[in-house]
């Protein structure tokens, strides 16, 4: 079970939208029980990052800032490039 966090300003709207969409996509591929997704407040990243495996960011993050793999959540909001990003996330989930 991999833990995925998504962060935005309040952990309520944007991050939860990405979390819901990502969860549905993973369910469609039968990976629903291989990952848990949580939307959090961006100010709480330091608290959550240590216990998480994947960070899906909706902002541009500098490379190597975090110890865990970081992916972009923007494609899931816009619908453009969502497949590619999903494939990358699935690779980490299955690793």
């Amino acid at each position, binding site marked *: 079970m991999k833990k995925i966090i998504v*962060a*935005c*300003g*309040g*952990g*309520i*709207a*944007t*991050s*939860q*939208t990405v979390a*819901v*969409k990502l969860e549905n996509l993973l369910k469609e591929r039968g990976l629903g029980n291989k990952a848990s997704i949580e*939307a959090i*407040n*961006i*100010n*709480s990243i*330091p*608290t959550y990052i240590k216990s998480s495996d994947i960070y899906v*960011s*909706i*902002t*541009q*993050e500098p490379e190597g800032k975090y110890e865990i793999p970081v992916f972009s959540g*923007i494609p899931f*909001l*816009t*619908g*453009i490039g969502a497949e590619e990003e999903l494939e990358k996330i699935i690779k980490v989930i299955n690793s």
Partner: protein
Amino acid sequence: MGYIEGFFQGLIDMGAPVFLTIILTVLGLVFRMKFSRAFSAGLTLGVALVGINIVVDFMITNVGEASRSFVELTGIQLGALDMGWPPALGLAWTWEFAFLMFPIQILVNILMLSFRWTSCVNVDMWNVGNKVCTAFLVAYVSGYAWLGLLFATLQSVLELKNADYTRYRLQKLTGIPGVSMPHPMFLSGIWFYPFVKIMDKIFPSTFNFDAQKLRDKIGIFGETHVMGFLIGCLIGAFGGYDIRSILTLGVQAGAALMLFPLVAKLFTTALTPVSESATSFMKKRFSNRAFTIGLDWPIMAGRSEHWLIMILTIPIILVYALILPGNLVLPFGGLMNICMVVPLFYLTMGNLPKMAIGTIIGIPMQLYVASYFAPHFTALANATGGVEVPDGQMLAWFGMDISELRYIIAEFSLFTPIGIVLFIITIALTIYYFKGIRKEDLKIKKELGIEE
């Protein structure tokens, strides 16, 4: 006609949690969702509403009681407890015509895309609640629901125009192409823009410093539970509590602020499927042309400037609240002043001194507007029956999006002299702002080397 009205009244009379469950289920079916999914989404909305009520109730019981004791002890009349945006927008959904804002926002967007008045496809359904809020406030102040819906419709139009006119600014700030932000708070540019222009004249734009390091040091105060704990302790101390009760209140206040997002995110869970259907519907219709995807503001939230200024101005908000004559609001849930700081970030391109000065100038206005609308938020909470607000206590929302504009249109809807004057000034400022911001945007476009 009477039959239909009776039917709707019957639905509304069942109370917001039941009513909204039914409405969202039907809306889902209209968008051709499977019944099971539509019902699940609808029920999630009802559950979210019940959840919000429980947490608001919890907040009134603990923090509210301490604040009343604080008022008694100090004589400072801060009878309106600020709940912040998650419960305030949640509460707005309980207004009886709230659900109409869904079709209105989607229809406005489709019409404007058809006439090529905008290139923004707004997929941000969370902020439908922000239009509901405008509509309900105007309706409660003026007594006319249609007037509220009219101003909310106008807000939708302006939001899309603003998204168009700032898209390259957004691209420059985030590095993300093809997106825009039809969020209402950026309409604060209408009144903030002239002030920013004046500040540009006074301070050179090179006068700035690195936000990241300082933010890393004080970031912990931006964590919801930590902030809630500190404010809770403060209110308890001023309320004359003993040390044990102070700390208990601190933890309870932390719990209230931590639980708000947990229940508020259920609104997102409920609305996302409908949002997806509406989005694919719009995209299919306009697939033959270039458009931007309209998103909520947090795509800029990675920048440290916002959080640094928000955290640093929290003590200033509290001091203002204590000393401003006529202020009724005890800031609590809305202390992270997103709707003031983020528009200033956007207008100044992240210039910290200008953001700080703008925020310090703007807070008193926000407190007075929050005091002005407090009776209406309280009335809504009482009317929908979910929350029992005790006598002598009011609910407020400090740091509301476009506080200044909502106050102006509310006063204008009453045709008060001040309302009429401010409304006319607002029209002039809107023209000035849109012209100016668009020109800046085209300049940024050139800078980025974008050609079409």
